[in-house]
């Protein structure tokens, strides 16, 4: 019995569903009870996994998908400062800032800088009406992305390889543990 020779063949997903495999393997499988059992197990696993069809967005989504990618690319390129929207946006931001300072002076709030992210989460969840969107979580996530990007930028590797080394991962964990808003 030379089962080892066929072990890899047995594990090939294709060989569980089709008989289009090499003759030696087919013959061995029909004669060897151990391989028959293994084959049956893999076939059952394959059958189970077939049930797991991912939810696929419909065709209308895929039709506009390249445009969505373009939009994201453009949004990262930065916009010229003379854009009217930016001028209006700056005005509005300044107005909100003045209003914010005024409100802040009227009712002093706890110092978020001294809170941990979890305490701040509890405080802001109770006080802001963000409809279930947790502000600290968003801030923490963007902080994590930023910290990760910083660490990755030190890697002199192919542009498509973003993996952090174990040391970098530990450093990131440390940074996030001591993160404060």
């Amino acid at each position: 019995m030379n089962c080892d020779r066929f072990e890899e063949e047995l594990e090939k997903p294709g060989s569980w569903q089709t008989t289009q495999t090499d003759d030696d393997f087919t013959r061995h499988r029909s004669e060897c009870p151990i391989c028959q059992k293994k084959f049956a197990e893999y076939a059952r696993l394959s059958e189970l996994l077939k049930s797991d069809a991912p939810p696929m967005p419909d065709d209308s989504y895929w039709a506009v998908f390249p445009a969505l990618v373009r939009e994201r690319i453009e949004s990262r390129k930065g916009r010229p400062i003379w854009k009217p929207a930016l001028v209006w946006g700056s005005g509005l931001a300044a107005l909100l800032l003045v209003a914010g300072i005024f409100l802040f002076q009227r009712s002093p709030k706890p110092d978020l800088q001294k809170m941990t992210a979890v305490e701040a989460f509890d405080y802001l969840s109770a006080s802001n009406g963000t409809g279930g969107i947790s502000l600290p979580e968003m801030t923490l996530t963007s902080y994590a992305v930023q910290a990760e990007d910083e660490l990755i930028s030190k890697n002199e590797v192919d542009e498509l390889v973003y993996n952090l080394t174990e040391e970098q991962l530990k450093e990131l964990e440390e940074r996030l543990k001591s993160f404060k808003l």
Partner: protein
Amino acid sequence: MTAGEDRELVARFKSGDQGAFNQLVRLYQKKVYLVAFRMVRDEEEAKDLTQEVFVKMYGALKDFRGEASVFTWAYRATVNLAINQIRRKKIISWVPLLEAEEKPMEEKEGLSEHETSALRKAIAEAVKKLPPKQRAIFILRHYDELSNEEIAKIVGKSVGGVKANYFQALQKMKKHLAPWKSVVTGSVDYELR
């Protein structure tokens, strides 16, 4: 789509034909999404990740020298971005996160809606228990039926490492899904988790 055709599209893009990039996106968008979904198990995250892969690709294609195929590039970017996403979620899991909404799945013949949904959940849980890189290897080998050599290039491991990881992943999946084995063989002697 052959590697030669891919290269031609890349060459057109590099010479200023923006439509060639759109063609590349259309070619790989669904494949990338499927891998992304199977890695992160959340539809919205997978859509976001898919967009991100092509944004990265747009920047990287300018320096593309054709040493790897676009297909390998796209898969590699997907797997790496997904692994980072999984790690990031794990690190910040102490901040309350909303539970991902369970999506309906195609009903399996002979199973009730409840059983089908429970089976899907069991598969998702089993996949999530695999370490990120092993998860990627399992998905690329099992669902995409890529060769060990292709997967080795994508995940940056040796062919032997890929084989060993795939074998381990298979054993874990079999173990995690053991209570469901009899469902597909027609026996009623199974239990729902």
